């Protein structure tokens, strides 16, 4: 081991450089800290895109490297968002309640404040009491721990049951899909304790930072998201290099052979699945404060399928492939569905991209599968090889 890890993996350095350059450029062009060329809402879109890239990276670890096709990763993404959302909403509501009670003659007790917060948050679903699961919502530290713990435990239980029973392939994919659907349906209920279909809102307001404008906040979150993406990119690259990565790829290609070599394959799958779920949850926890709102529809199965499509188009089994795919497709997608793409009038019919974007995405997916099975990342590989050849 004469050379360091980064020196042996130049692609990681290239990626980190590109990410840093991107972040710096956006900062300079931003309203918050720069010349104001890019609107705050667009900065938020970019910040959210970085979080989606991180989720795609995490999916690539389980699917591209370990061969476990999870169609339910947004369950972890959403749970991460809900966990941080609870603190954001609670602390923000507490500020409002305290300031509105500031002028009453008797200073309110902490119980009165808590009741008022409950009424504020749960009035919309006809409740007034804070449910049990909100017990720690006033503590940022605990909620941050829960961002990791709740999705981690869910992934552990799910993976332990599924892998131990040797469920694999399509059957496992269907189970993951069922998991996210069940979670979504559960959260839609008002008595789930997370405000049913209203979800959690006002998450863009950071408690204790009233004086910081949204323009500045958006840049801070962009930095945070970029930092998270960069760190987990290095960690994942390290994870998948060396003997551990070799074992994980061996599971993808022939798990029985590895089993007969004495490896306890299930424990490896479980470790990768849980780590991937946790990274996805952290991505979600960074995403929703930028989105401002989270509701159970976010966890619907289609979201997880999009994530898979991004990784497939970007090229699975290579980390930058997942990131390129997620960035490229999700940005194009928001351009087409945001009404910015010009409609095409054909006289007898007008192609509205809001409706036709999904068809286009479907075609794109089929084309990539047929003609570039290694995805956009595979094209990058070819370019690099041609240059060095």
């Amino acid at each position, binding site marked *: 081991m004469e050379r360091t890890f980064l020196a042996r993996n130049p692609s990681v350095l290239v990626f980190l450089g590109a990410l840093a350059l991107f972040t710096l450029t956006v900062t300079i062009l931003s309203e918050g800290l720069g010349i104001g060329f890019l609107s705050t809402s667009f900065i938020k879109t970019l910040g959210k895109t970085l979080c989606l890239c991180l989720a795609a990276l995490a999916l690539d670890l389980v699917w591209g490297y370990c061969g476990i096709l999870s169609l339910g990763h947004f369950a972890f993404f959403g749970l991460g968002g809900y966990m941080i959302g609870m603190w954001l909403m609670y602390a923000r509501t507490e500020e409002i309640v305290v300031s509105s009670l500031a002028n009453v003659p008797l200073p309110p007790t902490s119980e009165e404040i808590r009741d008022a917060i409950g009424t504020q948050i749960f009035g919309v679903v006809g409740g007034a009491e804070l449910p049990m699961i909100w017990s720690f919502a006033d503590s940022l530290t605990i909620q941050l721990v829960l961002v990791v713990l709740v999705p981690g435990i869910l992934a552990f239980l799910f993976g332990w049951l599924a892998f131990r029973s040797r469920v694999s392939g399509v059957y496992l994919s269907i189970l993951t899909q069922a998991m996210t659907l069940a979670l979504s349906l559960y959260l839609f209920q008002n008595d789930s304790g997370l405000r049913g279909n209203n979800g959690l809102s006002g998450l863009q307001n950071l408690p204790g930072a009233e004086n910081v404008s949204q323009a500045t906040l958006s840049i801070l979150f962009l930095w945070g998201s970029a930092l998270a993406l960069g760190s987990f990119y290095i960690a994942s690259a390290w994870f998948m290099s060396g*003997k551990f990565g070799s*074992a994980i*790829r061996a599971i993808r290609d022939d798990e029985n052979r590895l089993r007969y*070599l004495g490896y*306890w394959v299930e424990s490896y799958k479980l470790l990768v699945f849980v780590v991937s779920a946790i990274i996805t949850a952290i991505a979600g926890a960074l995403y929703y404060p930028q989105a401002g709102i989270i509701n159970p529809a976010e966890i619907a199965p289609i979201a997880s399928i999009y994530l898979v499509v991004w990784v497939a188009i970007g090229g699975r089994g290579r980390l930058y492939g997942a990131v390129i795919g997620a960035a490229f497709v999700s940005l194009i997608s928001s351009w087409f569905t945001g009404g910015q793409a010009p409609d095409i009038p054909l006289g007898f019919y007008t192609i509205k991209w809001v409706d036709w974007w999904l068809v286009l995405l479907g075609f794109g997916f089929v084309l990539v599968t047929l003609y570039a099975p290694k995805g956009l990342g595979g094209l990058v590989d070819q370019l690099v090889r041609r240059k060095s050849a």
Partner: protein
Amino acid sequence: MTRAETLLELDKVSVSFDGFKAINELSFAIGSAELRAIIGPNGAGKTTMMDIITGKTRADSGQVKYGDHAIDLQNLSESAIAQAGIGRKFQRPTVFENQTVLENLTLALHNDRSPLKVLFNKTTEMDRRRVDTLADEVGLTDHLHRTAGELSHGQKQWLEIGMLLAQEPRLLLVDEPAAGMTPQEREHTTDMLKRAAKTCAVVVVEHDMEFVRRLDCRVTVLHEGSVLAEGSIDHVIQDRQVIEVYLGR
């Protein structure tokens, strides 16, 4: 054979699939440094026997005793059995085709296999020397950095044998190692197996009589799930029952 010399013993093992008795009251034993060939017509239960020993299939009745303490393998998982020192070579060459020969051999090295240990694993000088020795043993020294998928059929078979040896096994189960090999490759494979049998027990399942003759070892003939005959190759092929089974009655 006394208990002390026996490494593996199958005692009246039976297993049936949908009423078909694949293995029928099979009893079989092998010593700790012995080369043994198993022959038998299709459907004789050769592969099923390997499946039972390696934990892929559970027997309906009987015992599979292994090692110094005669533990019953039936209660162990495939990976635990492998860790106990039983290596298995499949009929088709089964190596990790997307990885280099070096990576394949390194994965198989006899080291701690728990995920966290492997994650923080540092390849030691000893590991590297061991891989070099193994590569030399199976004739792949010049191919260490090639992807396993690029190797010829014979080389893949050798790589798999090398991976089995890397586990430092006490018992090797080898399923038709010579299938699809050229005469020179066969010779090389014979030498390899004979050398391996000096340090551990090797069980070779083979159809090819010529190959079995060259192995020059004790032969067990399986038929309809139980042992038909056992002895030297010359003894076995003169057995009336064996002739009947092989030539049809």
